[in-house]
């Protein structure tokens, strides 16, 4: 009897081991594929050249890289301050208010809302009425995705600062906002920064919300009031097309994006771990 249970135990635990292998297998398979195809596509011309018409070789991704960078930076500039301020309210001024729990809960759900719906929303609000697609609308869509993420991470990080620290500052006569700026933010700074990094990593990989907002541009442009190309939408466009050259560029773009995002994610996670070791 015992023997049978022991065997079942071994088998079950071995199966669990296999599941881990399954998960890791796909991870390495996908990453390996991206690296394999992407590295061969990675030439200086890929990054420095403007795009070429379909069927013509020698095009590059300069327009997409620049456009995507512009959009992401703008989104960060819009989303981060609002996110931090919102999280500050939930963790500080509003911490005893019941409604804050509700806001927090809703923000948590918003983190996982389908990105394409945010895109449709921004289209209805900022593209149709204005009359053209714009990089700014794309940045707005990304910002709307970032805000709940940053609100939640900021709220969490700020809540970790012990209340006694704030009390000490109050006892010295400091007004609440000074307490927040000079004590709480200082202490949680690294955590908030990590939250920002992870939010950027999340948002850089989005394509769906950009499809109907920043649209696409066949030329290199720095103007946020115009449609802008982005790496993710360009990958979508090129991968769905028939030209071999386009496929090659799509892999190159995939490689760049994956490198960037995984890099940021690993840095972010590493920073979190370091913070908690202290």
């Amino acid at each position, binding site marked *: 009897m015992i023997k049978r249970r022991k065997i079942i135990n071994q088998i079950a635990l071995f199966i669990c081991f296999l599941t881990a292998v399954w998960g890791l297998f796909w991870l390495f398979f996908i990453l390996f594929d991206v690296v394999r195809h992407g590295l061969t596509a990675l030439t200086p011309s890929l990054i420095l050249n403007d795009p070429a018409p379909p069927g013509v070789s020698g095009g590059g991704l300069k327009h997409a890289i620049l456009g995507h960078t512009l959009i992401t930076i703008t989104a960060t500039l819009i989303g981060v301050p609002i996110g931090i301020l919102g999280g500050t309210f939930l963790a500080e001024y509003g911490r005893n208010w019941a409604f804050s729990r509700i806001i927090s809960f809703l923000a948590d759900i918003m983190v996982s809302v389908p990105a394409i719906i945010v895109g449709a929303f921004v289209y209805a609000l900022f593209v149709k009425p204005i009359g*053209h697609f714009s990089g700014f609308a794309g940045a707005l869509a990304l910002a709307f995705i970032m805000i709940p993420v940053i609100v939640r991470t900021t709220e969490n990080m700020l809540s970790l600062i012990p209340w006694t620290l704030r009390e000490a500052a109050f006892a010295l006569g400091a007004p609440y906002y000074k307490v927040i700026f000079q004590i709480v933010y200082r202490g949680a700074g690294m955590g908030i920064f990590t939250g920002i990094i992870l939010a950027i990593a999340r948002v850089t990989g989005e394509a769906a919300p950009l499809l109907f907002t920043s649209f696409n541009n066949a030329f290199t442009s*720095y103007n946020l009031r115009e449609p802008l190309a982005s790496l993710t939408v360009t990958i979508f466009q090129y991968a769905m097309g028939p030209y071999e050259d386009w496929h090659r560029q799509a892999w190159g773009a995939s490689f760049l994006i994956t490198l960037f995002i995984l890099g940021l994610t690993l840095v972010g996670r590493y920073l979190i771990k370091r913070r908690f070791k202290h």
Partner: protein
Amino acid sequence: MKKYLFIILSILLLISCKAKEEAPKVSGKTLNGAGATFPYPLYSAWASAYYKEKGIKINYQSIGSGGGIRQITERTVDFGATDMALKPEEVEEKRLLQFPTVIGGVVISFNLPELGDKRLVLDGETLCKIFLGEIKNWDDPKLKALNPGVNLPSKPITPVYRSDGSGTTAIFTHYLSDVCPKWAKEIGFGTSVNFKAGIGAKGNEGVANYVKRTPYSLGYLEYAYAVQNKIRAADLKNAKGKIVSPSVESFKEAAKTSQLDPAKHFYAWMTNAPGEGAWPITGATYILLAKEKAEVNKEVVKFFDWAFQAGDKTALELHYVPLPEEVKSKVREYWKNQGL
């Protein structure tokens, strides 16, 4: 922390300064257009040359004719492009202007490894049945009858159609409606129809991609895409019963009998044309302009006027048929009448 903020702010300042340099006052330096994937290789080539010559960017995005119509109706782009001409009433209703730019052919591309160099012959009825899902295999007797002496395998056909709103679909389904009463009754024609069989791909690009990589598939494709990607295209039996191959000549034959009339905003179909050597699935592609945007329209018209003068060679290289001179004059007159 402060140091990083300063660095970020200064980078942004630099970028915004650069943006101011490039920022046009009234979209003067960049014109945004969107629509049909049908002429995309051509418009793209024209835009590239135009930019080199005049420094004006024509940003054309191929999202399908349905997209072109919608985006110009909503005035979210400077010009829209469609292979399905809007009826004159629709053009008036949406306060648009419409004119053709070039003519092209829709071909039946396929992926049949066993065929080798032999040609594949199809006709309207078999195409109809294939896309209705009634002919399921390559070695169906109807296909065999059209292709004696060809070893057709016993494999299922995968039809590929357009999943997005497409003028190419409109031209193709208009042809099917012409030759196949069942199709006309059950499905009809338009940029987006209720296909009964096969898989959907986005854009002519997507169809070319799927057909290229999926053996035993068959899809309707604008000719330039088939040629550029070295995909085989079938010959068709036309209205006169002759078997024609797709080519600039057979497209020209079909275009001869069409009536492009400025009074009707050039609304016309060229499918199932009566000529001896006419390609049965031919069509023109159009540009749509928002009537009230005079400034922008002037710029767009300048671009296409330049293309009419200097772009014929590129069009022929890419297997499109440039508009005959009479039609070009009609289009220029149309522009003049609209004050452009």
